[in-house]
């Protein structure tokens, strides 16, 4: 059981090793990396390739660790008691299992994705320490102990908005997803657009990497933006020659909106293009 590139998802060797090591040792794997390098996508593909269920827990700034375990819906219990419903006598009727509970009690070993853990309160990871370590927790209202039949594969992503506590980090494996190099990127594109013409692709990649290397860009375009841009180029049927011409003369690339998401960045590229044009004259 080892994870490798699939038909529609390319992983680097490093990342494959990280995933496999985490699965073998049953440790949570913490993933960081530039936005758009496929952190969330990895969980989907991993679940698919293992034929396992994917349980996604998207973290927001208001999410508490308790939400992942269970929630006690006291308000509807109160309402039921006013209406004289029989359900009210069993408190278990009002315990709503959270994502961790679901993952612990799944039939088959599932993949649990805790997405963007850094969005939550700074104490959030600490509150989950014990649950992730022991893979069990206690429901106070019913006195029930929920433990995992088999340890789920836990993937955690972070965008680095907050530092995570040391105690939490010690219990995870950590992998920083680097921006793919030209070779891997070519493979990724080939997976997404099998019929893209070779010439268009290599010109587009040139333009793309040139853009990424431009100093002073506020937001560097990432893989997902490249894929969007290629989609547009293909949809508009822009021939490679036009792209090449634009690149040599300078000037904004066609459909630049897919790559540049910031007004200042657009201006910067325009300015450089203007300089380049003057030099060409």
């Amino acid at each position, binding site marked *: 059981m080892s994870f490798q590139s699939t038909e529609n998802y390319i992983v680097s*060797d*490093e990342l494959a*090793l*990280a995933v*496999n*090591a985490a699965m*073998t*040792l049953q*440790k949570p794997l*913490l993933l*960081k990396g530039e936005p758009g390098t496929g952190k969330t996508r990895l969980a989907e593909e991993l679940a698919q390739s293992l034929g396992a269920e994917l349980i996604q827990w998207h973290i927001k700034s208001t999410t508490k660790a308790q939400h992942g375990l269970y929630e*006690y819906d*006291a*308000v509807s*219990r*109160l309402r039921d*008691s*006013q209406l004289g419903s029989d359900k009210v006598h069993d408190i278990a009727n009002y315990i709503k299992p959270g994502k961790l509970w679901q993952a612990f009690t799944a039939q088959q070993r599932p993949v649990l994705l805790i997405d963007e853990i850094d969005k939550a309160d*700074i104490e959030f990871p600490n509150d989950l320490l014990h649950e992730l370590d022991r893979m069990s927790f206690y429901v106070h209202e019913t006195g029930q102990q929920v433990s995992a039949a088999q340890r789920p594969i836990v993937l955690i992503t972070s965008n*680095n*908005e*907050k*530092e*995570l506590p*040391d105690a939490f*980090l*010690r*219990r*995870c*494996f*950590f*992998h*920083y997803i*680097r921006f793919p190099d030209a070779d891997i990127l070519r493979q990724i594109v080939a997976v997404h657009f099998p019929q893209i013409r070779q010439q268009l692709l290599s010109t587009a990649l040139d333009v793309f990497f040139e853009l990424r290397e431009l*100093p*002073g860009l*506020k937001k560097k375009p990432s893989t997902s933006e490249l894929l969007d841009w290629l989609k547009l180029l293909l949809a508009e049927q822009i021939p490679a020659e036009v792209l090449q011409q634009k690149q040599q003369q300078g000037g904004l690339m066609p459909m630049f909106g897919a790559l540049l998401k910031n007004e200042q960045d657009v201006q910067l590229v325009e300015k450089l293009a203007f*300089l*380049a044009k*003057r*030099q060409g004259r």
Partner: protein
Amino acid sequence: MLVEFFFTLRKYGLKSSITELLDLLQALQQQVIFADTEAFYQLARLTLVKDESQYDKFDRAFAEYFEGVAAIDLASQIPDDWLIPDIIRQLSAEDKAALQGLGSLEELLKQLRERLAEQQKRHAGGNKWIGTGGTSPFGAYGFNPEGVRIGQQGSGARRAVKVWDKREFKDLDSQSELNNRSIKLALRQLRRFARSGAATELDLNGTIQATSEQGGYLDLRFVPERHNAVKVLMLFDVGGSMDDYIELCQQVFAAVRTEFKHLEFFYFHNCVYEGVWRNNQRRHTEQVSVLDLIHTYGSDYKLIFVGDATMGPYEIDYPGGSVEHWNQEPGRLWLERLLAQYPKAVWLNPQPEQWWRHYQSISIIKDIMQQRMQPLTLEGLTQAIKLLS
């Protein structure tokens, strides 16, 4: 097993723990990898390092342990993004004309590199760093604290460099200088104390929840009032010796600007005296009295100075010490007044920390600030934020 390796890592300042070492050993025992140094490198990094800013330290430690510390490919690391802003800033009118003649910035950079290479050859003293006083118009760039040697492009003897020897994560090391995003991240830590103080506000959701849990018996819940607006008063040193750090300060400023709703900023020169100003062009006509500042902005503002604190000691300690005007009272007095009003204060110094002890004025200012001075690096900024919160 691997104990020696583990201690090498600790020697390089990595905070890896024993649990993590045991994880690594367990992974090896389970044969996740087998007899492959590169895979071992990745596995060790996966288990022992938990922050990409530590990757560079790890690379260096790994290289030491496994010897073969191949020469690092310095030539390819000439930091364009450090050079470009500086070049643009230092261009004179003639240079700009020359730039047009040369074409793009890239051309210029290339020429700069060539020239630096030549310069290095002339100072044929072995591994000389490029100094500030060089004859080349570009010589000033030698200040790079990392001490990057330039001019080795031509040496055809490139060895096959191993992954860890490339040290590709060097720019993520938190000791290095900042970029805009990392500044924002550091500043974001100031948001921590959003709800503080006495619990005086009715928490409606909490009350409903608590009341329901009590089966309808009213249970009032209160939360502290939200102080989500952190207020910041920034004073920037401009001109003179600060020119070298303009780019850096602009980045800090841009980041601060987007992170805080209540931000007031003013400029001063070298040391704070009775007046500061908002607009550097009209600095002599539109000064704001520091007393007004103290009376306008409450003591809940956090005070941040940004300056290199590099000046003559008399500029701080004597009346009339200012280089620009006659000041009735010494700068020290004004600094102390500001500090008395704003207990949460810190001084950010763009000068590299190892130079501080060479300047008397820095230690004077540091004393006045009660040691609350931090270098303008990511780590320094993080420390500074801790001091402020």
